[in-house]
């Protein structure tokens, strides 16, 4: 089963609330990938234009590095939501798969709930820092945008990942992570 079909295959179309939750998860995952794709395209464009500007016009953009790094941080936390929905986070589940089905389910449910609690805890503390930056009105050095915007990607991303974990557990059930090697998506 490929990773792409993992999401679809293990979760046949359901009716009612679970079905709506699944469609919402699919939509959110696709949206996250599209937004991350835009950010990646922006990075490539800025990088190329900056190099050309430096060698052809002897002028580099002082804000370029900062913009690219913030786009990367955006990608990491937003695309991670899609990774979570696909169940594709890097993990080592050889032992888990050897356990009896009941224990597998118990471990996946327990670890998912604990992971969600941990992510929300981290998001809470992260939000405190971002809120303080917002109150102080601190700005970034080169782009001079409010510092809370790029730093806000961290708590927002953590909440998004936690949300996707819960949605996945609800709609797909307690399934181990899928990192199917035959998938065209998987090529680390």
């Amino acid at each position, binding site marked *: 089963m490929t990773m792409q079909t993992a999401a679809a295959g293990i979760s046949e179309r359901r009716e009612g609330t679970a079905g709506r939750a699944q469609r919402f998860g699919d939509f959110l995952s696709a949206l996250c*990938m599209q937004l991350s794709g835009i950010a990646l395209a922006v990075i490539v464009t800025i990088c190329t234009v900056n190099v050309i500007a430096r060698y052809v016009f002897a002028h580099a953009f002082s804000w370029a590095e900062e913009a690219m790094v913030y786009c990367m941080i955006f990608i990491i936390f937003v695309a991670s939501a899609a990774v979570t929905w696909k169940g594709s986070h890097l993990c080592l589940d050889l032992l888990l798969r050897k356990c009896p089905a009941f224990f597998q389910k118990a471990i996946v449910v327990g670890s998912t709930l604990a992971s969600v609690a*941990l992510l929300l805890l981290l998001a809470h503390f992260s939000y405190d820092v971002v809120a303080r930056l917002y109150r102080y009105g601190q700005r970034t050095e080169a782009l001079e945008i409010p510092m809370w915007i790029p730093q806000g990607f961290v708590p927002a991303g953590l909440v998004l990942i936690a949300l996707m974990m819960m949605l996945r557990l609800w709609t797909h059930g307690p399934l181990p992570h899928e990192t199917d*090697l035959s998938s*065209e998506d998987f090529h680390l």
Partner: protein
Amino acid sequence: MILSMLAALPVILICLGVPIFIVLFAVSVGGMVALDLTSLKAVHSAIFGGLDSFPLLAIPLFILAGDIMAQGGIARRLINLITAVVGGVPGSMGVAAVGSAAAFGAMSGSSVACVAAIGNLTIPTLVKQGYGRRFSTSLIAATGVIDIIIPPSIAMILYAITAQVSVTKLFIAGVLPGLLIGLLLAIFVMIRARALDIRVVERPSPREVLAAAKAALWAVLAPVVIIGGIYGGVFTPTEAAGIACAYATIVSVYVYKELTWQGVWRIVTRSTVLIAQIMLLVAASTVFGWVITTSGMPQAFVAFIESLQLGNWQLLLIFNIVLLGVGSVLEPPPAILILTPLFAPVVAAAGIDPIHFGLIVTINLAIGMFLPPFGINLFAAHALFKVPLPDLYRGVLPFLAIYLFVLGLITYIPALTTVPVQWVR
């Protein structure tokens, strides 16, 4: 007691199939609370501070560049050219597979991508020529990891950032070991071809070689731009990766016409998944590394190692064994991110060059990728090419011997990695 728990907890959680980034966060938070280090607000600063790094940007860009080159016909034309150039020598197709893996390595940094791309294009021909399915697939599973050793390599970038050494110097140090492994693999394939009495393919005419070269001109320029740009001091590795993406896109869409803009967009969005997989791990590992450093664990580890009064050769032997073991179950990115904060202080205290050690780490973890029984390339080759795992376990043994031989050379002759760095300097 707390330090032992800090060491044991990740192993238990990882074995239970918990995502590795969660394990790193959990252990970090557990350590911070248990050791009463500081407020958990520091986690935010560690994450953002760790990711706010321009050199780190090379990872997503090289992932994207490698994917566009593989899908856009650049990799295929390079393979065709190498096949034409080595045509006429015994075992030419096998040698071409090794050369193609090395060339692919010079454009991207992902090993399983290399196995898939090169394997799909070469295994059917290798089998048809009489190498046998087991040998052909094992060859591809083993050569695929050259990708990790020949720069630009994602593993090297991660090590350089974690150990705070120059990415470019590490790249320079990786060239010779990568080429040496490639050369030895090619020689072995030629010997094997003679033993199997594989018919020597007729040497292509100069006209055919020229035609392949003409078709691959733009493809050949891709590694030239990347490597020449970095080593010539024209770009930083990150900029080279960005330029590689733009170059690969333009060539694939307008010159080779093998990708539409829609296809490029599909690759871009797909790459974000792999980028997030790796980079979220980097985010979590920055917190983990910070907790490890603040907890005093590296100092305790250094003191413990010093108390053993080991010579450097013994120390390096132990590191090699540990890294091979870890590399066979964990992929290079998490292994580097978890182990480097712990090993780097010991290495520094022993007076070992961190660039030299970076190569030792990279080669060990690359070998781990096809080390039986858990090497991920073996599973990839098994899944992609339907060869039973026990066959692959036996098949990769000669290749394993070659890699271990080079690892021994690199470990105990530091000049092989440190001198080229001085030359370029």
